């Protein structure tokens, strides 16, 4: 297997995600790490809450990884996504891609995070001092 998909309530471990994709044939690893920002559109965020349709989220992430492996000369992909309540500075997502040459790693990693945000059934609620909102739910 050259993909590792993890969906977890536990804090994500960046080092172990990167370690998983490292391989002797790879010369470059690109890693995207999402973090919880303290502000959104000028408003202070207290924390985020992530909810997933677990089984489908995992299968959609697997599909993305399979597609990336077909599309670019890359060797290993790890996608780790967190669920539950996350404070500012915590890490909801890590995507690591290892390839013999770095261009493919960069391109695939960017494709994975861009597409994950569009297709994987995971939802984020922003919690402010004066209320909360499911991100992107309404126009």
């Amino acid at each position: 297997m050259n993909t590792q998909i993890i969906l977890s309530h536990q804090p994500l471990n960046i080092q172990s995600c990167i370690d998983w994709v490292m391989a002797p044939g790879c010369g470059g690893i690109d890693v995207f790490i999402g973090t919880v920002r303290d502000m959104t559109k000028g408003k202070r965020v207290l924390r985020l809450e992530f909810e997933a349709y677990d089984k489908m989220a995992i299968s959609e992430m697997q599909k993305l990884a399979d597609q990336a492996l077909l599309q670019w000369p890359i060797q290993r992909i790890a996608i780790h996504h967190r669920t539950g309540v996350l404070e500012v500075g915590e890490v909801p997502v890590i995507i690591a891609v290892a390839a013999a040459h770095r261009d493919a790693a960069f391109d695939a990693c960017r494709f994975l995070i861009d597409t994950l945000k569009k297709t994987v059934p995971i939802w984020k609620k922003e919690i402010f001092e004066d209320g909360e909102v499911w991100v992107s739910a309404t126009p």
Partner: protein
Amino acid sequence: MTASILAFGITKDIFGASSITVELPADATTGGLKTVLEEQYPRLKQLASYLLAVNNEYAADELPLNERDEIAVIPPVSGG
């Protein structure tokens, strides 16, 4: 048939539950289910968009439904 519908994110708020059941004709499709849901829960029409998933796959508009299908409403996703 009786279809059980899973809800996530804002849809859970709209349904007031993480799962509901609706009565559908035996030859119901995803399109027909959407019409029924929008009648019962008009706030669905205020979403930026939403899709149905059947058995963990995004479903086409006129996919026939079976009683044993796992059906979910997928409001706009915002992971990552």
